[in-house]
Every structure is written in C-alpha cells, then in structure tokens.
C-alpha cells in the first residue's frame, strides 16, 4: 500500500536546544488530562506576560501529591495565576521570582494588594521575600491581615532589619504556641523590636493611634 500524500521531510538537522540548567518545572506524569490542559493554558498565559510559570506547575504538582481532585487542582492553578499577576504588578518595578511568589502567598492569606505596594515603597531596593514571608506567617497565625500588615510595614519604615523581622515572627510563633492570643503576642513583640529602632522622623501614616 502506498501513502497517498505528499511527504515533505525536512532534511535539515534540528539543532538541540541548549537546556538552561537551572530549575526546570515538570508536571507530574500522573496528571489528569484536564489538569494538564488547564496547566498548559495557565503556563501559556504566564509566559506571555513574563510570570514565573514554574510556580503554576508546582501548584499542580502539590495538588497531585496531595491526591486532590482535578477540579480542585485546576481551580487552584487558575487562582494562583491571578495572584501572581497582582503580586507582580503591586511589587513593581522588576520584582524577583521569590518576591512574586512571596507576594502571591501573602495575597492568598488575605493580605490586601495595596499592602504589597506599600512594602515596596518602604523597601524599594531590598528584597521583600523575607518581610512578605513574615507577614504571611503572622496572618497564618491568626492575626487580622490589616493589623499584621500595619505592624510589619511600620517596622520596615522605621528601619527594622531582616533579622529583626525574622525574630519577630519566631517570637510570635512561640507565644501563640504557648497559648497567647495572637494580637497580644504581636503587640508585645513589636514593642520589643520598636524599642531598638530610632524614633520615627514624623508621624507615620501607619502609627497605631491607640498606642501610648
């Protein structure tokens, strides 16, 4: 039997793509076909606007590892795609991938988008990955997002270092685990860090009016 069509076989050798040997995202092979298609759509969209697509694939892999339903996975990936875009926009200009990921985490737990912008304004030239992580963890511990955001950005504006923000988070974690109410723990520990910082140059927009 013959093949009744015109064959055009390219005789040009295909040069291999030099693989960039950094982190390569791979979707788990057990992914449902619907999940795969949904992830592909999100990856195409992310790629077209320069968002870190590996985070979307990682989210899908997390869902697969946790045996989530395909619908839950596709919903989670789509929602993450939106959060990444918001985070990137609020943390402009040129946020790093770590910052975008951290910003998306913060949004995930209910931190208002405009807080990310304020944090960028407080630290225009330093990575926000750790402060965002601290903020996210405080909110995860039960603090109202506005309250936690206000405290963290206030400390950042007053000159707190990453080490101090890190120790704030660790201390609040410990206090909550020991039975303290989250707000009480945050108030106590923030005062401790504040006492080490130079006084505010002028009335801060974020100063809690109830503080003595």
């Amino acid at each position, binding site marked *: *039997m*013959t*093949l009744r069509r015109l*064959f055009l*076989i*390219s*005789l040009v*050798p*295909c*040069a*291999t793509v*030099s*693989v960039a*040997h*950094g*982190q*390569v*995202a*791979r979707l*788990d092979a057990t992914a449902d076909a619907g999940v795969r298609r949904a992830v592909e759509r999100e990856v195409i969209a992310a790629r077209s606007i320069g968002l870190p697509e*590996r985070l979307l*694939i*990682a*989210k899908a*892999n*997390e*869902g*697969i*590892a*946790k045996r*989530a339903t395909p619908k*839950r*996975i596709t*919903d*989670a990936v789509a929602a993450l795609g939106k959060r990444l875009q918001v985070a990137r926009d609020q943390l402009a200009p040129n946020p790093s991938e*770590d910052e975008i*990921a*951290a910003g998306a*985490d913060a949004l*995930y*737990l209910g931190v208002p988008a405009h807080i990310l912008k304020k944090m960028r304004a407080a630290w225009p030239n*330093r*990575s926000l*990955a*750790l402060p*965002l*992580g*601290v903020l996210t*963890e405080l909110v*995860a511990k039960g603090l109202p997002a506005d309250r936690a955001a206000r405290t963290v950005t206030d400390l950042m504006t007053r000159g707190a270092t*990453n*080490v101090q923000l*890190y120790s704030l*988070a*660790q201390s609040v*974690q*410990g206090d909550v*685990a*020991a*039975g303290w109410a989250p707000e009480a723990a945050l108030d106590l520990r923030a005062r401790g860090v504040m006492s080490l910082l130079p006084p505010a140059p002028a009335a801060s927009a974020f100063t809690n009016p109830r503080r003595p």
Partner: protein
Amino acid sequence: MDAERDDIIEQAAAALRHRQWRSPRAIARILATVEGRPRRWWRAVTWPSAPFSLAATGSLAAAALLLGFLTRQATDRPDNQRQLGGIPAARTLPVLPAVRSTGEALPLPVQFTLRDVQASQVALVGDFNGWSSAATPLEPGEVPGTWSVTIPLSAGRHVYAFLVDGKTWMTDPRAQTARDLDFGRANSVLIVQAP
C-alpha cells in the same frame, strides 16, 4: 533485508534518522567532566539526585562557602494522634541559630531531618522543589531510622512536608504547620533568614 521493511517503514525510519540533535555544549560538558578524572575511581559519595546533577547552580557552590547552617535536630516521630492533633501547648519551639549569609541573594543551606525507624524511604517535598517526590530524597543516617538532607533555600517563607514510603504525607514534627486552603492537607512552614 528484513521482510517487514517496506516503504512505509523505510519512510518512517528515514524521518526518524534524519532528525539530529547536536549539542556542542553537552559534548563540552562531558569532556570537562572526565578531564583529570581517574579511572576506576570509586566515589564514596553518590551523585545528588538527578535534578541537581544537571542543575549545577552557582548557589550550591556559594552555599558551601557559608560559615554555618541552620540545623533542625532530629527527634522521634510522634505517634499519629499527636502529630495530627497539632503542637501541644507546653511544647517549646527550637531556637534556630541564625546565620549570616555573605549576600542577600545567596540561598542558605538548610538541613531537614526526620527520625522514623519504620520508613524505607523518605522524600522532602515543598515549594522549593516543585513538590516533586523524586527531587529531594532524604538519605539514611548511620543510626538506623534517621534521615536527613541539606539543600539551599532562599530567604523567606517556605512550605514543605515529608513523603514517607512514597505514600504517607507527614508534616515535620518540629515545625509550625500551615493550613492548606487549596487542597486541605496541612504543610509544615519554615522561614529562612536573610541579613
């Protein structure tokens, strides 16, 4: 000549044969790898898992130059009830010694450990390895039932878990847990310090 090699098979084979993947960089990498390599040298240290062997990032080399690392000490795996029930109120958190890195952008090496005498394999899964169960296996320690791995992590908040024997999802008994709003299964949380 094979009887089955008719024109269709010949065309298909020719199409497959005509495709050539040339990679001068890969060739150079092979030659660089074997340069000065003694033959029949049995290396006591096994290569790291595949993603690291090809992803030789500069950050790994930089991490090796750092003064110390954050260590999470191994402890007995608590029984399931205690683990699933959260951290008892009387429990104190470990004090993690802080380490200054030489540059804000450099990741810090972080050691993850678990003690589980029943496990035959343990993998670390998290946001830093795409939740891949094959990317970061823990290695057994000299003391039976102890497992550990050290990997570089960027500053900030990370979520992770252990996957035991390929199927049991386990949070780190010495770490904080985080609710999972997407999939309903808690993760462990770690904040990696930065200067």
